[in-house]
Each structure stands twice: as C-alpha cells, then as structure tokens.
C-alpha cells in the first residue's frame, strides 16, 4: 500500500502521457474503427512542429512550446484530414486493409521526417519555467514538465467532453457512431462528420507530440515508442469511450509505476502486459461499451 501511495504521483504522470498519446486514437480508432497505425507518426509530426518553430523560425523557447500547441493541432489535423479525404475513406469497409495502409503511411511519414530533419534526434529545449520539479516528501518528486502534461491532458479531456456533449457537431459525431444509417436519414452529413473526426483525432496527436518533446526523444521513430501503449489504452478503455480511455490510462500508469517500484522496468512492462491480456480475456469489450440499438 505504501508503494502505491508513494508511486501515485509518478503513476499519474505516466498515465497522463499515455492518455495524451491515446486521446487522438480514441477518435480515429475508437470512434471510427480505423486501425490507425500512422497515429504514432502524427504524434511525431507534432513534435517536429515544435522543433521547427524553435529551430527554424527561431521562437524563444520560453513561449515557443505554447505557440506550438495550437499550430501542431492545426498542422497534424490538416494532415490527418487530407489522408482521410484522399486515401483512408476508400478503405472504411475493410478494417484489416486500413491497418496495412496506415502502417505504410506511417513508414512514408517516418522516412519523410528522416529526409527532412536527418536521422539523429533533434533537441527541442524545454522552457526554463518547466525544468526542475516539486518535492512532495522525501523521495517523491514530481517534475514541472509532468505537471504541465497532466494539466494539458486534463484540459484536453475537458475540451473533448464539452465538444462531444454540448456542441452540435460533437452530438452529430456521437449519433454517427451509435447508428450511422439512422444518423444519415436524419440529415446528418456523415462524410463531413467522418472528416471532422479524423481532423480532431489527428490534431490531438499533434498536441501529444509537442508535449512529448518535454520528456522524450524527438526523432523520426518517436511515434513507435508510444503507438503500442496508445492502442492498449484505447482497447482496455473500450472503443470510443472517453471515460474508459481516461480510466484505462491512469490505471495502467499507476500499475506500471507501482510494479516498477519493486521490479525493474522490463519486468514491470511484462507484468502490465500480462495483466492486460488477462483483463481482455475476461472482458474483451474493454471497461465500457457503447450501448447501441443498431442491429450490427
């Protein structure tokens, strides 16, 4: 119990990273059923946006990160929207083909990044106000960069919840997920909703990318570090379930941190994976499911 309490801040911090990486996937994979293997590369695009703003355009690191957030959202969102418009929409009925397709898109994006920015990692300096950390008690220290990610994640979740529940477009999105045909009959332009969903999902990947430059490497293969975890979170949470994704991310984060306190990181990862497999055996649909009256 002590271990859980002392590792709680670390667990929350890890959970926030997982959640941020998974939020966008919750839209593209969770809501639309596209097994989007290129999600990691959209995260990478966001990270490189932060790099470009700082290193090429020369913004001061003190605030370039804050500017990078909306810029990255727009750029990766547009990129995702274009991909949906040009390629992915032709594959909606063929989930396994979209897997291969998006995997290929991911590789192309990776190589494009390598050709543009070079194979080595690039340095995205953290703003001075995010270095260092807060000592809670002896041995428990939470880094400012982690607090920032936690705050950013919470802000994103609130914004998404508000969008889905309060806005007209968000409600249309939910209607399409519940029953596409019925939604279409009531006059919702489902094509437009699909494109919007992809835009938001990809844009969130961009925001994750910017935030992840604070705690990890910025290189062409950045996305591959997070893609598996992101899928796990969405699957465990239940497809298309925001509250499921949130709960799953923090549970996995805390579980990871707690196990890591007494085993090493390799073993912790193994134990977490085994737990997930066992959980999905018992509950393949994840924590929450969409209740729908559709016949499918």
């Amino acid at each position: 119990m002590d271990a859980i309490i002392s590792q709680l801040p670390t667990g929350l911090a890890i959970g926030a990273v997982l959640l941020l990486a998974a939020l966008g996937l919750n839209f593209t994979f969770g809501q639309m059923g596209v097994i989007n293997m290129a999600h990691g590369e959209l995260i990478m695009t966001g990270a490189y946006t932060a790099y470009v703003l700082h290193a090429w355009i020369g913004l001061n690191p003190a605030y370039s990160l804050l500017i990078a957030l909306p810029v990255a959202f727009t750029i990766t969102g547009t990129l995702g929207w274009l991909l949906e418009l040009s390629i992915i929409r032709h594959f909606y009925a063929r989930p396994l083909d979209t897997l291969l397709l998006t995997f290929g898109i991911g590789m192309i994006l990776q190589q494009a990044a390598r050709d543009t920015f070079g194979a080595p990692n690039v340095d995205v300096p953290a703003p001075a106000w995010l270095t260092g950390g807060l000592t809670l008690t002896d041995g428990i220290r939470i880094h400012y960069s982690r607090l920032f990610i936690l705050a950013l994640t919470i802000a994103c979740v609130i914004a998404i919840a508000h969008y889905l529940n309060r806005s007209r477009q968000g409600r249309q999105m939910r209607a399409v997920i519940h029953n596409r045909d019925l939604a279409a009959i009531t006059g919702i332009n489902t094509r437009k909703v699909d494109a919007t969903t992809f835009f938001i999902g990809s844009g969130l990947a961009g925001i994750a990318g910017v935030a992840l430059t604070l705690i990890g490497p910025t290189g062409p293969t950045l996305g591959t570090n997070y893609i598996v975890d992101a899928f796990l979170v969405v699957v465990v949470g239940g497809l298309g379930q925001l509250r499921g994704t949130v709960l799953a991310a923090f549970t996995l984060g805390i579980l990871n941190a707690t196990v890591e306190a007494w085993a090493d990181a390799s073993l912790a990862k193994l134990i977490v994976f085994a737990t997930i497999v066992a959980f999905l055996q018992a509950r393949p649909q994840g924590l929450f499911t969409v209740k729908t009256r559709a016949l499918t």
Partner: protein
Amino acid sequence: MACSRPSTWTKTLTAALALTLAATACGTAEPAGVDTDTVTVGMLHSLSGTMAISEVTVRDAVQLAIDEINADGGVLGRQIEPVLEDGASDEATFAERAQKLLQSDNAVAVFGGWTSASRKAMLPVFERNNGLLFYPVQYEGLEASDNIVYTGATTNQQIIPALDYLREQGHTSLYLVGSDYVFPRTANQIITAYADHHDMEITAQEYTPLGHTEYSTITNDIARTEPDAVFNTLNGDSNVSFFQQLRSAGVEAQDVPVLSVSVAEEEVEGIGADNIAGHLTAWNYYQSVDNDANTGFVEAFTDTYGADRVTSDPMQSAYNGVYLWKAAVEAADSFEVEDVRAALDGIGIDAPEGPITVDGDTQHVAKTARIGQVNDEGLIDEIWTSPEPIVPDPYLQGYDWADNLTG
C-alpha cells in the same frame, strides 16, 4: 547412337571441367571482386528502422574514407567500388545482405554492423564464406572471430578504464542503469565483478526495454538514494528521456555524475547539451581530440557533410577500418582474404584517435581510452586519457576477478 551419347557427355563434362579450372586459375591470381582497375567492397548498415539514427553517420564516415582513398589513387592501383546495402535494423536482414555481398557482389571486405545482434547474425555468414568484416562499434567482448576485425573498443579498453577512473575519483557506490539486451547485461556483469574485487558497492541494477521513455521511477530513485555515480549503458533514444528526466528530478552532474558508454557527440545533440552538460562519457575518441590526423578528419567530414555535423567514436572507428584494410592489403600485396588477414597483425596507422595497432591474435585494435565531460556547447572535453594505447583483451584473461564471467 546409344553408345555415342556417353562420349558426347564426356566431352561436354571435360570442357566444363576445363572451363571451371581455367576460371579457378584466374581466381587464384585475384579474387572475384577485383578487376584491373576496381575492387569491390561492401557497406552494410541500417539505413532504415530504429538503428538508422546511428548507423547512417557511420556509413557517411566509411564513404568519406573510401572517397579519400580513391582520390589518392586507390588501393594497389585500383579504385574502391562500394556496394551499399541496408541492414534495416533487423538481424536476419543483416545476415542475408552479408551473404549477398559476399556471394553475388564478391566483396573482398565488408564494412558494417552496429548492434551486437547484427554482428552475431553476420558472424556465421562471414565464417562460412571466408569473408572479412570490419566492425566499428565498442561492444561487450568475449568474442574473436578470424573473419571479423573489431575496430571499436572491447571491454578492457572502455568499461574497465572508466571504472578505474571512477575509483580514482573516490566514487565507491555505483547505480547501474541499462537497456535490456546483451551489451548492458554483460557490461554490468563485468562492473559487478570489478566492484566486488575493489570493495565498491552496487546500489541498484536497473534494466529498461530498448526505446523505453519512462524514467520517473528510476530518476526519483537516483535522487533519493544519491549514489556516488551512475554507470549508464542505455542505448539509443532512451538516453534522451533518461537525461531530461534526471535533470527534472534535480540530480546535478557535480553531485551524481552519470558515466555513459553509448552517448557520443551525435547523441548529445538529440539529448540537448543543457540536459547532459557536466556528465561523463567513456570512449576512445572525441571530436575534440587534438592531433593532426583528427584535425584533417574533422575538416574533411564537415566539408563533405556540412558544418553542423559532428564526428563520434564509432564513426571514427569505421573510418579507421577502411584505412587499416588498405594498409593490410598493401602490406600483403593482395586482396585475398587469407593474405590480408595474415598481414593485419601489427598493422598500425595514425588515426584521428592517435596511433592504433591491430593485434593479430584477436583481430582487435590497441587503442587509447579516454574519459570525457560534456561541455555547454554539446562537445565532449577530454578529462582523462590512458597513458598509452591499451592492448585488447576481449576475454579479460589478464584480470583475475573476471574469471567467472560468462558471455
């Protein structure tokens, strides 16, 4: 009719045999990859996948050496023609491409490899085909193949000098953190055996999967337990996360220095000089090494690839490999692998890292060990240097305490 058939067969067979013999006779004069004015060598590095980040830089260094030698008249009057293959960060691909380079391209020497896994996969291919591989990266030792020339450091030229240095500085408790694969695990075995023998304490031994990015628990643990030093055998991207998060955890280089064995100039750029300044590295070469050969090397490299590029230990070792091969070929006056290998013993060159000599028994290279400290500009300053080049000892036979190590 029926009886004439065997005689036709015999004729054809004789003709074929004669042709084969003639072909073999040509072969004894020069191996198949050698023409009157060119000689084929292979370059086998990961140009795609997770290792591309490091291996592309090594490929550049090999290419530079080949271009320089060609501009200078080639080897034995022949221009070097490199065949470039992509190992794709995958051991099986390395083995398959190596086979292709040796069998269909007839490469008389191959420059390639980075991870130990790729080397282990290529080793049987080179032994079976009697090829010659120049492997450029420091590694975990406990290996010596006749068909591989190891131009990077083995453990007694990097890890043991690093431990000697830490001990000299009065650091008696070490925290070990490494990626979970063969090199860090073997290195940590050696470190633990060394520590036992020298009354040093190992406070923890942590492994994380390759590509791991969550170091909160480990960095908090380091901040809390305050070991004298951290010995870091993390590889690749993980170093970026580790150093960023270590800094956030409030661990300062002057209190708990981290000594890394897989972080060179190239990696420092990605980590960010701010995050790693003041920490230590153990290598045999730094861009800042001060001698004429290195000045020339750095100048040629930045002229070719751009002023923002840095040179690192594995790049330099790969560059040396080409020149060692050239020297051995010229000493043997032959491109034949057997002859080149026989000539390699005692071959020395004035490398950017200083004078190096091939030890014929192990086909490793005697080289100088150097401890460096990362400065604010992201370059590494030399702060300690072994008095002379250290003779390679891949099986650590010269160290009593290393008797019980397993590979």
